[in-house]
């Protein structure tokens, strides 16, 4: 795997030995930081608005500017959003819905990743006639607009007896996740020399054994990429969540929408923003904690296909 501390580009940009270039090198360096900083501000701007708004009282929002630092910092909105804001008749905040999302996301991510790994392994290493066609059919499936599948999917879930249930939601997310997870694993495994599989076969290792003892141990980086991608997509999904759930199985995005998007009620922007940040915490956490492995995983092959 690539060594991160010795990036080739970094070497290229490292200060040269020529003393007359030091000054311009330094200026360039400052320019670089200024640019990076400016972009960081651009990316942080919406988060800044969300966080400051969530810390204001409703009176302050109503009277003052929406985009300014809070005069009096209060965490009331956060408490309300988590445990007492109304998402309908129930006023228990986001808390009960959070668990639904976890129950839905974790199995769906695991299943889609496992299936993607097996599919990718087959397509990349056990090429048979038609495998490429199957792969392209799967890839094309990534592009189907989800609005198209809502109604027929509802019908299918009804037939399967999974309507309105969390297992139903898991099935939907797994099916529409397979395309991308297969793509990721296939592009990763295709970089592993086919000789490895051949040699193992000669040694008498079978299909699963080769996967288990050769491919899986190599797969950590791409597993991280796939899990992050799937986790973000499934956790943040609203359309499937709202269509295929019923009372008691609604995921957190539906609850968030109920808080934020009521049409004729009085708007509590501070609670809205706090709720939004709370609902996004798991994905934010995943990006912050696993971000490094994300880049590493991408480096390790998924993009070389």
């Amino acid at each position, binding site marked *: 795997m690539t060594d991160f501390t010795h990036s080739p580009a970094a070497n290229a940009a490292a200060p040269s030995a020529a003393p007359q270039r030091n000054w311009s090198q330094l200026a360039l360096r400052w320019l670089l930081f200024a640019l990076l900083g400016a972009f960081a501000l651009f990316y942080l701007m919406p988060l800044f608005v969300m966080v400051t708004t969530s810390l204001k009282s409703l009176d302050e929002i109503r009277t003052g500017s929406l985009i300014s630092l809070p005069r009096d910092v209060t965490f009331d909105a956060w408490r309300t959003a988590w445990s007492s804001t109304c998402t309908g008749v129930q006023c228990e905040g986001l808390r009960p819905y959070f668990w639904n999302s976890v129950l839905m996301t974790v199995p769906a991510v695991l299943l889609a990743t496992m299936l993607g790994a097996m599919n990718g392994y087959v397509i990349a290493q056990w090429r048979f006639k038609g495998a490429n066609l199957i792969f392209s059919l799967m890839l094309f499936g990534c592009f189907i607009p989800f609005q198209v599948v809502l109604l027929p999917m509802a019908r299918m879930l009804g037939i399967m007896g999974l309507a309105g249930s969390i297992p139903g939601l898991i099935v939907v997310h797994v099916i529409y996740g397979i395309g991308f997870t297969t793509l990721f694993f296939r592009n990763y495994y295709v970089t592993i020399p086919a000789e490895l599989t051949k040699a193992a076969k000669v040694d008498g290792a079978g299909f699963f054994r080769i996967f288990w003892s050769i491919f899986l141990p190599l797969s950590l980086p791409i597993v991280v990429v796939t899990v992050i991608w799937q986790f973000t997509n499934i956790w943040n999904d609203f359309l499937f969540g709202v269509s295929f759930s*019923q009372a008691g199985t609604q995921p957190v995005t539906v609850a968030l929408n109920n808080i934020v998007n009521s*049409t004729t*009620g*009085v708007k509590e922007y501070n609670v809205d923003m706090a709720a939004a940040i709370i609902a996004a915490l798991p994905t934010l956490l995943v990006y912050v904690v696993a971000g490094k492995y994300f880049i590493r995983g991408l480096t390790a092959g998924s993009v070389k296909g």
Partner: protein
Amino acid sequence: MKKSVFATAAVASIVASNMAVAGPEAEVLHWWTSGGEAKSVAVLQSEFADNGGTWTDMPVAGGGGDAAMTALRARVLSGNAPTAVQLKGPAIQEWYEEGVLADISSVAEAEGWADVLPASIAGHMKCEGTWCAAPVNVHRIDWIWANADVLKSNDIAMPTTWAEFNAAADKLMAAGIIPLAHGGQAWQDATVFEAVALGIGGPEFFKKAFVELDMDTLKSDTMVEIFDQMRTLRGYVDSNFAGRDWNLATAMVMNGEAAFQIMGDWAKGEFIAAGKVPGQDFLCASTPGEGYLYNVDSFAMFNVDGDDKKAGQDLLAKLIVGQNFQKVFNLNKGSIPARVDVALDEFDSCAHTSAKDMNASNEAGSLLPSYAHGMALRGAQAGAITDVVTAHFNSDMSSADAVEMLANSVANSL
């Protein structure tokens, strides 16, 4: 309090497990999710529970019910329809035609709904002669709200004709005040448009154009005049109006930045939440012209299996139209009761105006369904009209072009 709730729940569950037949049950799909609205629905839930029912809440907010309708379609197609659904206007009949609505005539007849509901509102609740929905409230759409201080200091009276409105607006412009607070979202454009159409065209015209979709009326000179007035109003709106939420527009009236807002009576809730007093801090009046545009929220019952659920539907329908719920709910929501025999002592002056006007216009035949809020037309046609209204309001399209486009667009939607 909490303890007693738990105790009741425990007793209920013991009872339920001991007896084969549980009490009435209902899963209710609605889009009243925010503070005040949710509290209003909670009134119904607690009444339901007091009568031995079990309420399962299925709230889906967004887009004035769009998201809820998405969920509803998915639920119906999967054969898993909710027990009761917040549904209004011709959508009730549309769902009935799909053969998925339950008949609640037995409750309606036992409770004598026909005697207490205005005829035009009762009409929305019936499908081919049977009762298929229960009305909750009446929102009036054609309201104009004003900041009392701003009007007073500029020596302006509440306008009673659109000419007066324009004159007042010019005066306010000169004084550096935004005459009309408006949020540029399609449904808000449509709300203003229908108020203007009712004012300029009158009730007969409105009915022909937006209920019967009469082509000659849609293409008439009166319609050109209405679009002209929309163009005039566009000049009275500040330049940042696009995409603004309605409540931010209300806030502009509240803090004196703007003088007027044209919006349904849920705007009152926003004023009151900010501690403003009707008649003193803010004024309410019907928009210039005759007539009354209503938006009646209602619940329709879907076909479900199981006696406990059917019992739940009957109980729910009975409670919804019951006097107590109609009073408490509407006090919370800013609207007025759908039934005419509820005492209005606890309601504010705007609600009194609304109720009085509703009765008067009911007798005069000018009690009309709001097209902008899905009471007058089916979705496809209402949407086609709104597309034109909002395209005209947000561009420099001429009124003549708008009228032509309106006719084409409506014809294309049929």
